[in-house]
């Protein structure tokens, strides 16, 4: 049995190694034209309007129809800072006027699929809709642009963003994969038109959709990046069940699923198909955390909350959980590896991240005793009813806490009721929580950990003015070193000193795909790099 398992692991590793080398050598190959890329999408888009939705289920099938002002470099999507122009000219402009003005020159060769020219007026109308939506129009991420004072187009080829204050968060926020450029004349007539209709300027033209089944796009011959796209078209097939999506790749009914699979699915595919499968992996810009309810006893006591985090062996968990769940990297509240994030050495100074788990748990037991928390009671642990990674990590957490003498009973609910408890009734002692973001932008991503009256996605009900003050100071700085110092302060306050909420592990994105899919490179987010303009099929 052991030898079979060893053989399977060896095959998997060999295939992954092959996949990585194949992906690496893909750049050297000459891309081939033609073909239809068939891929599976685990969910269906609720509407077609990127400005009002936040799901990857919209980005994957509809994103290829649209252009962005700027985007993550599709040839280097794993970089956290490589942002390039899409409909603008040259490089992303450097700010002027004390870093408060950004002037973009718009390309003259961009056309909407209706044939009309895309101008600076369209870009301005788009961003006005995103930042200052009229009443009754939903814009999901408008607060990301709180630093923007105005957007104007002095002429048809120039867009000027004026900021209230200089901010390093602005450019990554502008590169959001949801900021699709809409046509001003259409928005002037009907602000809701894009909810049910598609008219972009992206590499593919919308062909058809069968609700619940698939969406099809075909090559845009007038695409502004000359020579692209390589594909004749794509077909996005909606398939909810993970097992079916895995089998679809195995049976070649689909070539890829862009979101990500758990390790077992990767190993199954590699074992079954060997070199016909390429695997790409990355740290995912999604973190799983747990949040104590600060309004409930004994979790209103900072000692009890610290005990909870001290009980968790993150370094050991990374090793074992990564074999069965889509989590792996140990990190704090910001994306590991980003310039503003703490290093591993810095993290190891924080309670709960100490490398010596025995020492941590001894301290946890001491704190629990000192706090006088009732350890004979069973506390309620709210868990989102989704296997990967919530239920798996939650089961592991309950065992971790048990080891310091505090008992939890898992209460698992489907997403709707789970969110209702988390956001409305607040009837939980501790809950699982997650933060899944797009372009890595720690300055925006950490707003989750601000006080309850400032963050709509903070569920612990805590008020922490020290964190708020540090954040307000940090957001107005442009010096990265200074920002980093403040970010470390926020991290320590949140995870250790005030023990507000605790990250556990960062998700690990695993995309096994048919080896004939070339040009697509994995990024830290399943929302990014989905234009498919540089993807080609080696068939």
């Amino acid at each position: 049995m052991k030898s079979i398992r060893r053989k399977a692991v060896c095959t998997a590793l060999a295939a992954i190694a092959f996949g990585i080398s194949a992906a690496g050598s893909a750049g050297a190959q000459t891309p081939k034209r033609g073909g239809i890329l068939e891929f599976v999408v685990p969910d269906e888009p609720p509407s077609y309007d990127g400005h009002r939705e936040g799901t990857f289920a919209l980005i994957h099938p509809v994103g290829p129809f649209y252009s962005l002002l700027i985007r993550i470099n599709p040839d280097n999507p794993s970089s956290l800072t490589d942002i390039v122009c899409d409909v603008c000219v040259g490089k992303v402009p450097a700010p002027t006027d004390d870093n408060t003005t950004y002037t973009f020159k718009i390309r003259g060769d961009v056309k909407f699929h209706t044939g009309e020219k895309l101008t600076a007026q369209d870009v301005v109308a788009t961003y006005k809709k995103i930042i200052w939506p009229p009443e009754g129009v939903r814009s999901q991420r408008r607060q990301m642009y709180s630093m923007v004072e105005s957007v104007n187009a002095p002429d048809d080829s120039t867009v000027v963003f004026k900021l209230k204050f200089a901010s390093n968060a602005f450019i990554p926020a502008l590169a959001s994969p949801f900021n699709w450029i809409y046509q001003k004349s259409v928005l002037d007539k009907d602000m809701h038109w894009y909810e049910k209709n598609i008219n972009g300027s992206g590499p593919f033209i919308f062909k058809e959709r069968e609700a619940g089944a698939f969406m099809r796009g075909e090559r845009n011959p007038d695409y502004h990046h000359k020579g692209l796209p390589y594909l004749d078209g794509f077909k996005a097939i909606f398939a909810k069940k993970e097992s079916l999506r895995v089998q679809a790749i195995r049976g070649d009914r689909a070539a890829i699923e862009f979101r990500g699979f758990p390790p077992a699915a990767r190993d199954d595919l590699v074992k079954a198909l060997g070199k016909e499968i390429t695997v790409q992996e990355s740290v995912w810009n999604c973190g799983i955390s747990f949040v104590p309810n600060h309004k409930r006893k004994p979790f209103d006591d900072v000692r009890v909350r610290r005990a909870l985090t001290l009980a968790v062996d993150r370094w050991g968990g990374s090793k074992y959980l990564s074999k069965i769940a889509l989590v792996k990297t140990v990190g704090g509240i910001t994306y590991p590896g980003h310039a503003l994030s703490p290093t591993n050495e810095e993290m190891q100074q924080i309670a709960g991240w100490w490398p010596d788990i025995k020492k941590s748990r001894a301290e946890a037991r001491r704190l629990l005793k000192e706090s006088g928390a009732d350890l004979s009671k069973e506390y309620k642990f709210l868990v989102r009813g989704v296997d990967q990674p919530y239920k798996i990590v939650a089961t592991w957490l309950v065992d971790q806490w048990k080891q310091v003498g505090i008992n939890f009973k898992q209460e698992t609910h489907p997403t709707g009721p789970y969110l209702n408890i988390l956001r409305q009734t607040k009837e939980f002692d501790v809950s699982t929580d997650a933060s899944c973001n797009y372009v890595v932008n720690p300055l925006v991503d950490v707003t989750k950990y601000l006080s309850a009256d400032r963050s709509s996605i903070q569920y612990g009900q805590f008020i922490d003015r020290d964190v708020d003050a540090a954040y307000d100071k940090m957001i107005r700085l442009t010096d990265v070193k200074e920002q980093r110092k403040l970010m470390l302060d926020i991290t320590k306050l949140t995870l250790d000193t005030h023990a507000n909420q605790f990250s556990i592990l960062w998700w690990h994105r695993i995309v096994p795909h048919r080896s004939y899919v070339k040009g697509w490179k994995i990024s830290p987010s399943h929302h990014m790099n989905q234009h498919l303009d540089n993807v080609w099929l080696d068939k």
Partner: protein
Amino acid sequence: MRKYIFKRLLLVIPTLFGAAALVFIMLRLIPGDICEIRMAGDGGYFDKAAVDTCRGEMGTNKPMLTQFVSFVWGLMRFDFGTSMWTGQPVLTEVALRFELSLQVAIMSTIIGVIIAIPLGIISAVRQNTWLDYMVRGFSIAGIATPAFWLGLMIIIGLLVSTQHFLGTPWMPPITYIPIWEDPVYNLSMLIWPTVATGYRYSAVVTRMTRSALLEVLREDYVRTARAKGLWEKVIIRKHALKNAMLPVVTIIGLEFAFLMGGLVVTEQVFNLNGIGKLFIESVLNNDYTMTQSLVMLVVMIFVMVNFAVDIGYAWLDPRIRYN
């Protein structure tokens, strides 16, 4: 007879109204908000004001009574409203999936009946022989085996066996093409789920055929026929089977109605874009308009089937009218 039909028709109205009230209340008892699922579901950043705008768009911020009156008024005009999740008219969404669900239901019924009737007869006629035991084992296994599990096994079996024998793994298509556009493609997709559901279907019908036939075979008129010296085949076919078919036909009808909206998991396993899949998705998304409309559609189908059955019984057995 006319008076009886009229009375039955009148009873349909309070039944539908009661079902509408029940489904409306029960759906609102499920905790959750479509707007929060839509925005907070991915764990990403979102603006609080957007949730309020969304509730305004969906109408979920209106008083319950207003929502209920609007729902019932729509039903009375056969206006099922628009899906809260997709924004498309409910009837358009249902119509898209109806064809596939109907084809699966018909094919499953055909497979089920073709297998079930002969097996049920053999089992009854050869009662307590090894043949009967085999048929009973086969049908009990059919009832005990969930169709979705069988479906999964079929897919995995196909992948493994084709890879082993042909060198390339093959699985059924995962997108639907109507039978008149590409019959081979269509059947290569739908034959597998219909086998999975048809097996369970056949098991139910086999057992019903067997017990109904056994009951009839013990009747006095069958004994009389045998005493007259009629051939056993003639007794079974002409005298017993026809009379035993009444409950079997009822079961076939009810199973057919169930298949139209009840293949919730099997449709997910084979990625069939049918009404069952739409049902489960609308429940998970807290899409009230879609769920309550689908429930009402199913209720209507069942009420109509029951109505037709009642009328049929009254026609077959006049005593029912007088009672």
